[in-house]
C-alpha cells in the first residue's frame, strides 16, 4: 500500500496525480545533468577522442578477452579495464551472449559490484564460448568459434560492435562513454576525461526536497550509448507506467530507474516506479531481435529515441561498474532465453496461487476474514488465497498478530484449511524500533541494520513509526531473516501461510524522495559498513524478497514458496510474483496495466498482475466488471483495495454490486479456474523453458508491422489473444488478429476470424480468441478452490484441423518436479488423428517421467472446434469400441465435435482416430 502521509498533511488536497515535484528529474540530479552536458559537448565536437583502446594491452584466453582503455586527453590518468566474456545459450547451446565489463583500475574506493550469483549467475555455471582474436589494424575482431557471433572493437576512438546473425548493436558509437573515477575532494581537473570536466557542480554534496546528500566519495557515474541498428523500436525497461514501445513514447526525459513508493503514480511518463529491470529487447524491421542488459543497481537513466532506421539509447548509472550483456536473437524468444541463461530461470510457483486472490487493506479481524471466506462459499465463487494487510499485526510489528483482532488466527487458518485455501500475511522490511520486539532485538544485537553516513543506526519513519531497516544486502542479515519464518518462531505459522513483501523500495516516509538517504551505509558482503545506499538502492527490495523466499524454504525445503513483492530488480523472477503497486480504480489504469505487465514479461518476470479493480478510489460497476474480466487473464489475479478510512474505498468483494454482477463474477472466475491446466502449462513453459506468458501482439511474428500498434491486446503464449476493454460504455472495439484464423473463445459456433475486426463486445466478458492450431487443456467443473479440483478430469479442446499443444502437470506444490516427476505431453492433430506423446522435455528439468502425483490425469472429454465435417466414427487406438460423440454445426458449416469419455490418460501415449 502506498504512503498516505502526504494526504494527511495536506488536509483536503486529494490531487488526482502524483506530486511530481517530489521526485528528481535528470536535470535535478547532478550526475545526469552533467552527463547530458557531456554528451552535448561530445556531439558538438565530432573529432573529439576521449577513450582509446591500447592494442598492445589486448590479451585473450578461452572465452575471455581483456584490454585497457586509455584517456586520450590525459594519458597520466589510470586506464580503464575492459573485459569481454563470451557464453552460449543454456537452452540451445548457440552463441550470442557477450558480457562487456568496464571498470577503473585501483579505484580510490571500491566500486560496488553485485555478488556473483545474486542477480547474474556465477560465470563458472555458464557455458563458455571460445573465441579467436585478430588485430586488423585499428580494429580488434573477436569471433565466436561456435557460430556467427562476433565483436569488433575500434581502437580510437573506442567503439564496440556486437554482431550475431543479422543483428548489430553498437556500444559507444556516439562516444558518450563516461566513467567518473573516484577522486579526492578538491583535486584538479586534467583535460576532458569525463563529464565532471564539463560540469563540476554538486560533485561532493547536493540537496533535493530539503534533504542533503553528503556524497563523501564524490562523483562516480558511469554512462555509455548503445545503438540498435535497424531496430524499429526497443521494449522492456520495466517498471514504467508507459507505452510498450520505448522509442515510440517519445519522452525527452530519460526513463528513470530508482525504486520508489510513488503515491498515486502518473501515467505515460518515464518516471521511476517500484522496480527496475535494465533490459531491452530490440526488434528490427526485418523481425530479428536482440537484447541489451545493464544490471547496475544504483540510480539509472536510460534515454531511447528513434533515429532514422536505428533506435539509439544512452544508459547512465550513478555509481558502480559497467557490467553489460549483449544478447542475440534471432527472435525475442531467444533473447529472453539468453537473458534467463545469464540471470537464471524463474521459480515455478505452487498451482494454488494461480487461482484467485482476495485482498483488502484490511480485513479487520478473524471473524471478518472468516465471513469473507464464507461468503465466497455462499455465492459459489472459487478463490484460493485470502490476504491480510498491515493491520493484522500487533502495532505493525511483522511476524506478530493483532492481540485482539487476530488473537484467534488459528481459527481463521483452520477455516481456510477446511476449504483447502491459503492465507498470505504481509511482511514489510521496516522493523519497528521497539526494544520489546524480538525481531528488532535480534537484528540489532547482530548489528544487521542499515547505518547512517556516520555509521550510527539509521532510523526512518514508516507504518510502525520509527523503524530500522535491515541490511538485506548482507547475506548474514538475510540468513537471520530466514529464521523468522521457522515454524517455532512465527506464531500460527503453517505450510500454506505465504508472504507479501510491500514497501521494500524501501519506503521511508521522512526520507528523500520517500526512501533512504543515498549516503546511508550497508555492509553487503564486505567486512564493514562500506557500501553506500546509492550503490545498492535498486536491489534493496530484490534482497528483501530473496531473503523472504529463502525463509519459506528454510521452513519447508520441499514446499514451493510464494512471496509477492512490490519492489524488484533484474532477477526477481527467480523469487516470486510482482504486482504493479498502488494503481487507481480509473479506466486509464486498467488500460496501462496491459503494456505494464507485458513489459514485465518481456523482462523475464511473467508472474505479474495489477490490482483489480485499482487500489485507490471506488470503481464504478462497469469498471469493476471490465477489470475483473481482464484480470482473469493476468498471470497473477488479485482483488485488492485501499483502506476504508482516509482515502476511503468501499467493500468490493465479488458479491457487493448486486446479483447481476455477482453472477458475472461467478462465471468469469469460473473461467479462470477452468483454464488452470492451461495456465499451469504456461507457467511451466515460462519457469522451465523461459517463454514469457503475456506477450505483445507482435511477439509471434516480429515482421508484422501492424501488430506493433496495439497495446490493449496481449497474447498468452501466442495461442490465446485477450483484448482489454478500456473505456466506459464501449460497445464495439477494434481487435487486431495477426496472421492465421482465430476462434472466438466464448462461442465455438462462431466462424473463425482474422485481421482487423470491428467487434460488438459482450457486457459479460472481454474479447478472447484462440489461434486455429492451438490445443487448450481445461477442467470444466467449478470448485471452491484449486486443490479441490485435483481429482477432476480434463477436457481437451482442439482448435482447427491441424493443431499442436502441450500440457504440464505435477503434484502442484513440491519440488519433486525437479527430479522429473511431472507429466509433459505433446498432442498433435493432423485432421484425422490426435496423437499424444508423453515424456516431453523442458529446458530446466529435462524429460518428464511422470509418477508421484496426487492429480487426476483422466481426460473426460475431447472437443474439436472447426472440423470441416463430422466424423463417422471415433476410436481410441486399436480398440473396437466406438466412442460416444456429440456433434453440432457451426455458423459457417463446420463442426464442433465432442467425444465423451475417450478412456485416455495424460502422461500416456495414445492415438484417437476420427473416420470421416
Amino acid at each position, binding site marked *: 500500500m502506498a504512503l498516505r502521509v502526504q494526504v494527511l498533511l495536506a488536509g483536503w488536497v486529494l490531487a488526482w496525480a502524483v506530486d511530481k515535484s517530489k521526485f528528481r528529474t535528470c536535470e535535478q540530479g547532478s550526475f545526469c545533468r552533467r552527463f547530458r552536458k557531456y554528451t552535448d559537448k561530445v556531439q558538438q565536437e565530432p573529432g573529439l577522442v576521449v577513450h582509446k583502446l591500447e592494442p598492445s594491452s589486448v590479451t585473450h584466453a578461452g572465452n575471455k578477452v581483456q584490454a585497457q582503455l586509455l584517456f586520450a586527453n590525459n594519458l597520466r590518468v589510470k586506464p580503464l579495464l575492459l573485459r569481454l566474456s563470451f557464453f552460449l545459450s543454456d537452452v540451445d547451446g548457440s552463441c550470442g551472449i557477450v558480457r562487456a565489463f568496464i571498470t577503473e583500475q585501483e579505484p580510490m574506493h571500491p566500486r560496488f559490484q553485485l555478488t556473483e550469483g545474486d542477480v547474474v549467475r556465477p560465470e563458472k555455471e555458464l557455458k563458455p564460448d571460445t573465441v579467436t582474436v585478430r588485430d586488423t589494424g585499428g580494429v580488434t575482431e573477436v569471433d565466436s568459434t561456435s557460430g556467427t557471433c562476433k565483436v569488433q572493437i575500434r581502437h580510437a576512438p573506442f567503439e564496440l560492435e556486437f554482431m550475431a546473425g543479422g543483428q548489430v548493436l553498437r556500444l559507444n558509437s556516439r562516444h558518450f562513454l563516461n566513467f567518473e573515477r573516484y577522486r579526492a575532494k578538491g583535486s584538479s581537473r586534467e583535460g576532458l576525461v569525463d563529464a565532471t570536466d564539463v560540469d563540476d557542480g554538486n560533485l561532493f554534496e547536493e540537496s533535493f526536497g530539503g534533504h542533503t546528500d553528503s556524497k563523501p566519495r564524490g562523483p562516480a557515474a558511469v554512462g555509455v550509448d548503445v545503438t540498435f541498428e535497424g531496430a524499429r523500436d526497443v521494449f522492456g525497461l520495466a517498471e514504467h507506467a508507459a507505452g510498450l514501445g520505448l522509442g515510440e513514447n517519445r519522452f525527452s526525459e530519460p526513463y528513470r530507474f530508482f525504486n520508489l513508493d510513488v503515491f498515486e503514480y502518473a501515467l505515460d511518463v518515464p518516471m521511476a516506479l517500484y522496480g527496475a529491470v535494465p533490459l531491452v529487447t530490440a526488434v528490427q524491421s526485418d523481425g530479428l531481435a536482440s537484447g541489451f542488459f545493464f544490471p547496475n543497481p544504483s540510480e539509472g537513466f536510460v534515454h531511447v529515441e528513434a533515429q532514422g532506421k536505428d533506435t539509439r539509447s544512452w544508459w547512465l548509472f550513478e555509481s558502480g561498474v559497467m557490467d553489460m550483456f549483449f544478447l542475440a536473437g534471432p527472435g525475442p524468444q531467444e533473447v529472453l532465453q539468453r537473458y534467463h541463461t545469464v540471470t537464471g530461470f524463474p521459480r515455478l510457483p505452487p498451482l494454488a496461487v494461480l487461482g484467485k486472490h482476495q485482498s483488502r487493506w484490511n480485513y479487520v479481524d478473524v471473524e471478518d476474514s472468516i465471513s469473507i471466506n464464507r461468503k465466497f462459499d455462499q455465492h459459489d465463487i472459487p478463490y484460493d488465497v485470502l490476504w491480510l494487510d498491515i493491520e493484522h499485526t500487533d502495532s505493525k510489528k511483522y511476524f506478530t498478530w493483532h492481540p485482539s483482532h487476530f488473537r484467534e488466527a488459528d481459527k481463521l487458518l483452520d477455516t481456510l484449511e477446511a476449504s483447502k485455501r491459503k492465507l498470505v500475511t504481509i511482511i514489510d522490511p521496516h522493523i519497528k524500533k521497539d526494544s520489546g520486539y524480538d525481531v528488532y532485538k535480534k537484528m540489532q544485537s547482530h548489528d544487521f541494520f542499515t547505518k547512517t553516513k556516520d555509521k550510527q543506526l539509521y532510523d526512518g519513519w514508516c507504518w510502525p513509526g520509527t523503524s530500522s531497516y535491515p541490511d538485506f544486502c548482507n547475506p548474514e542479515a538475510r540468513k537471520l531473516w530466514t529464521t523468522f519464518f521457522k515454524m517455532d518462531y512465527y506464531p500460527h505459522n503453517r505450510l500454506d501461510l505465504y508472504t507479501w513483501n510491500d514497501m521494500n523500495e524501501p519506503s521511508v516516509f521522512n526520507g528523500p524522495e520517500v526512501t533512504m538517504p543515498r549516503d546511508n551505509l550497508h555492509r553487503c558482503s564486505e567486512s564493514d559498513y562500506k557500501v553506500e545506499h546509492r550503490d545498492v538502492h535498486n536491489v534493496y527490495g530484490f534482497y528483501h524478497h530473496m531473503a523472504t523466499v529463502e525463509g519459506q524454504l528454510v521452513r519447508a525445503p520441499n514446499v514451493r514458496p510464494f512471496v509477492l513483492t512490490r519492489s524488484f530488480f533484474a532477477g526477481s523472477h527467480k523469487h516470486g510474483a510482482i504486482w504493479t503497486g498502488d494503481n487507481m480504480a480509473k479506466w486509464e489504469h486498467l488500460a496501462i496495466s496491459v503494456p505494464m505487465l507485458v513489459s514485465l514479461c518481456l523482462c523475464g518476470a511473467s508472474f505479474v498482475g495489477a490490482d483489480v479493480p485499482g487500489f485507490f478510489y471506488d470503481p464504478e460497476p462497469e469498471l469493476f466488471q471490465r477489470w475483473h474480466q481482464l484480470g482473469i487473464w493476468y498471470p497473477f489475479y488479485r482483488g485488492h483495495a485501499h483502506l476504508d478510512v482516509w482515502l476511503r474505498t468501499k467493500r468490493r468483494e465479488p458479491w457487493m454490486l448486486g446479483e447481476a454482477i455477482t453472477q458475472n463474477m461467478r462465471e468469469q472466475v469460473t473461467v479462470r479456474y477452468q483454464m488452470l491446466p492451461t495456465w499451469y502449462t504456461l507457467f511451466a513453459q515460462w519457469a522451465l523453458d523461459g517463454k514469457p506468458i503475456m506477450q505483445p501482439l507482435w511477439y509471434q511474428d516480429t515482421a508484422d508491422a501492424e501488430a506493433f500498434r496495439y497495446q490493449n491486446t496481449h497474447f498468452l503464449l501466442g495461442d490465446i489473444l485477450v483484448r482489454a476493454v478500456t473505456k466506459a460504455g464501449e460497445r464495439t472495439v477494434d481487435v487486431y488478429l495477426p496472421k492465421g484464423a482465430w476462434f472466438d473463445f466464448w462461442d465455438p459456433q462462431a466462424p473463425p476470424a482474422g485481421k482487423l475486426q470491428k467487434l460488438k463486445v459482450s457486457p459479460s466478458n472481454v474479447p478472447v480468441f484462440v489461434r486455429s492450431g492451438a490445443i487448450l487443456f481445461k477442467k470444466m467443473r467449478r470448485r471452491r478452490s484449486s486443490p479441490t479440483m485435483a481429482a477432476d478430469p480434463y477436457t481437451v479442446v482442439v482448435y482447427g484441423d491441424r493443431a499442436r499443444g502441450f500440457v504440464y502437470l505435477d503434484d502442484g506444490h513440491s519440488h519433486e518436479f525437479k527430479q522429473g516427476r511431472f507429466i509433459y505431453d505433446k498432442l498433435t492433430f493432423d485432421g484425422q488423428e490426435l496423437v499424444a506423446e508423453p515424456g516431453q522435455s523442458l529446458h530446466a528439468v529435462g524429460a518428464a517421467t511422470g509418477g508421484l*502425483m496426487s492429480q487426476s490425469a483422466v481426460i473426460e472429454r475431447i472437443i474439436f472446434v472447426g472440423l470441416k465435417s463430422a466424423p463417422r466414427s471415433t476410436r481410441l487406438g486399436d480398440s473396437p469400441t466406438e466412442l460416444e460423440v456429440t456433434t453440432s454445426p457451426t455458423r459457417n458449416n463446420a463442426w464442433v465435435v465432442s467425444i465423451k469419455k475417450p478412456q485416455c490418460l495424460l502422461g500416456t501415449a495414445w492415438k484417437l482416430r476420427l473416420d470421416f
Partner: protein
Amino acid sequence: MLWWPLHVTWLSRALALTPGISPAEETRYKGTHFVCVEGSATLPASAVNDDFCDCEDGSDEPGTAACAGATDRWFYCPNSGGTARYIYISRVGDGICDCCDGSDEWLRPDSGCRDVCKEQGRARKVRLEQRRAEMQKGILMREAALESMRAEVEEWRKTVAELDANAAPLSKEMLELEEVQRQKRAAVIKEAEQLGREADLVGQGAEKKVSEYAKWMEGGGSGNTAEQAEQVCSGSVCIQRTAVSRKELRQIKVTSGALVDFMEFVYATGSLVVGEGKGDQQEPFNLEPGEVLLELRGGQGGLLDRVQFVTSRGRESKAYGGAGGQNFSFKASEGKMIVGVTRAVGLAGKLTGIQECLFRPLTDAEKAFDEASSILEDARRQLAAKHKETAELREKIEAAAGAHAAYRALNKCGETQIGEYSYKICPFGEATQGHVRLGKWKGWASDASHTALFEGGERCFSGIVRTLRVQFECGEGYVIESVREPSQCVYEATMTHPAACDAQVLTQGDRVLTPHEAHLEL
C-alpha cells in the same frame, strides 16, 4: 497415485435414491430413459450420474460435479437421521465432507467421510429443544407485556381525551394575551419612531458609517454621553464603564469565516462598525420592533472566533464564526439592554476580543411590552407542554399498535463483556463500548425486521462517526451475543430480546436449507 475414474458403484451402497435428488424429483429419474429437464436430449438411464455432463441444463448429473461449471444446480443431502439440506454441486466429490451423511462424497470413497448425521441430529435436537424452550419463554414474556400494554393504552387514550378538552379555554386565553402584547408593541414602535425623528433632527453625524475601530484600537472610549456608571463582567473579570447611548438597534451584520472579522450594529439611524476583516458576509440578525438585545456572548482564543446574540424574546442569533467555545458573556442587568460595543481590541484588522458593551435602560413603553411578552410566553409554554404531552401519548399509543410495540413494553438494556470490551446496548437510548459511545438511538431499519440503528457515536481517530446496527434475536434475556466492526467504526451487533419472539419463530427451521444458508444451520 493416479486417480482413475470410478465406475458406477454407488448401487452397491444400497441407496434407494439417485444421489443428489430430493424425494420430490424422484419420479423423473425412474425408467429406462432420462429426458433432460429442459428437454434438450433424451438419454439412456445409464447416463444419469455417470460423471459426465450430457444435458445442457446439467439435470442428468444431479449427484456428481460433472456439470458444476455449466449450471448452478444443487445437490440434495438426505442426511437421514439429521436434517436434509441442499449444497452446490460444485461441492460434490471434491474431497471435503459437506453433507453430514457424507453422501456428497459418494464417488470418492477415499475421502473418509463418516455419516455423522445421527450424532449431529441428536446434538441439534438438544440445541433445538433448548432454543425452543427459551423462545417459548420469550414468547410468553412478549405476550404478557403486550397484554399489560393494552391496558395502559386505554389509560393513555383517556388522558388524551382530557387534555384535548382542556386545551380549548387555554387557546382562547392565549388570543387575549396576544392582543395585549400587540398593543404594548405598538406603543414601543410609536416611541421609537419619535426618538428616531429626534435623532434625525439632532443629526450627530450619524448618517454615514463611522469606523470607530481605529479609535478603539488605541484604547480610547467612544464619545457617548455619560449617564451613570455600570459594572459589566466578562468571565471572572469585571470592568467599570461609563457610557450609555439612546440608540435604537435594528439589525446586526456580521462578517465571519472561521473567525469573526467584522461586526456592524445598524440603528434606526446610522451604524456602528467594529473590525475591518474580510470574511464572508453572513445573514444579518434582525431585531423586531420592541425586541431588544440582552446578551452578547462568544469565544475568543488568540482571535475572536465566535459571537452570538440573545434577545428579550429569548431568541438566539446563529453563532457567527468558528467553533470556539463560549468564554465571555455580556448580559444586560434588569431594565437594561445592549445597543453596541464600546471597546474592542484587534490585530491586523481582525477582532481579537470584545472588552466592553454599550448598554442603555429600557423606556416605560419597552418595559410594559416586555412584561406583556413574558406573560404571553408563560401561557404559550403551558399550552405547548400540554400539546407535547398529548403528542407523546399519541405516539405511544401508535407505537403500541406497531410492529415494535413489545420493545417499549420490555425495554431493558443489554450489557455483556465480549473480549476486551464491555458493551451496553439500550434500545431507545444509546450504545457503548466501554466508555466509547457507539451511537444514539436512531430508529428501526427499514430494510430488515427486528433491526435497530444507532447513529452519531463518538468520532473515530480517522474522522468517521461511529454507527451501530443491532439485530435482535428471540431470547428470554437481554444478551449481546456478538459485536463486529465490518469496516472501521461501523459496528454490527446481535442481541437477544424477548420482544423479538414472534410466535412464528417457532415454525422456522423445518424447511430444507439452501446452499446460501450454510451459516444458519444450528
